[in-house]
């Protein structure tokens, strides 16, 4: 198959993509990406308040991917270790889009969790965060189910997600986070 690279470029240009990556998500990669994004935010001379919000939400989105891939890494299939993310800015709104494979058997629980978060008001999210923080179980790596609550709380917007079926075992999960000023 011949790839039309201009096609890619044009799509990214039109969506104002500042940075995108596809592949294995490692700790070193995240360190580099966060450094690049921080200097891009500095160059855009964003208000400190916006800069911090974008950076914080980006950390949670990328570490969600990292922890998720860590969980499925025992699987034999190499391709499911791969993920994608894009960060763009259209007018004054930042978009963080992530995509990763998920086992079909895990969809229902994740969907329920995200839908539950989307039902909560700002004040309820604050209470729910405190509840999970003080009572929640922590995984061995320190993920504790707080990431999505934190993203919803900091952006003040509903989590926008989708599951695209791939085969009888996997689907592709995408999350589209918007941060407006």
């Amino acid at each position, binding site marked *: 198959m011949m790839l039309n690279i201009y096609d890619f470029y044009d799509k990214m240009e039109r969506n104002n993509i500042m940075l995108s990556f596809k592949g294995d998500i490692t*700790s070193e990669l*995240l*360190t580099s990406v*966060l*450094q690049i994004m921080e200097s891009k935010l500095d160059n855009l001379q964003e*208000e*400190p*308040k916006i800069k*911090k*919000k974008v*950076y*914080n939400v980006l*950390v*949670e989105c990328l*570490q969600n991917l*990292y*922890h998720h891939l860590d969980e499925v890494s025992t699987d034999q299939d190499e391709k499911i270790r791969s993920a994608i993310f894009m960060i763009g800015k259209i007018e004054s709104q930042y978009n963080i889009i992530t995509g990763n494979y998920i086992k079909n058997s895990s969809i229902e629980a994740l969907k329920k969790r995200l839908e539950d978060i989307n039902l909560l008001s700002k004040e309820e999210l*604050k209470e729910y*965060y*405190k509840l999970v*923080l*003080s009572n*929640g179980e*922590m995984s*061995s*790596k*320190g*993920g*504790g189910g*707080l*990431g999505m*609550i*934190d993203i919803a709380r*900091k952006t003040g917007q509903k989590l926008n997600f989708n599951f695209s079926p791939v085969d009888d075992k996997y689907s592709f999960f995408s999350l589209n986070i918007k941060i407006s000023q």
Partner: protein
Amino acid sequence: MEKISIEGTPKTPTITFDTGKGFLEIKGRSIPENSIEFYKPLVDWLEKYSTKPQSITNVNIQLEYFNTSSSKCILDVFKKLEAINKGGSQVTINWYYEEDDEDMLEAGEDYQAIINVPFKMVQVAE
């Protein structure tokens, strides 16, 4: 009495713990993927300190960023401080936040609501 410190990195904070002065400071960024591993030494030092604390213990938390993985570990640190406070050392947690950083102020208030130790919210200029 000893002075213990951990040098900061782009993903982890600088930690200074002067047990002789009863002073603990966590400063910088706390966004490691594996925060349990990073905070374990501090939790252990606090455990040791709690057996023979100073009469007053001052704690400065001055974080620019912290991730949700760190938030649970910071809570564990505060729980140790709660026990030290109950055990007779007068503990104060000074929570620093930059002017305009409502998210950081709110995060401090979340801990204040959970932990039974006096908190001081300290605003600093950007």
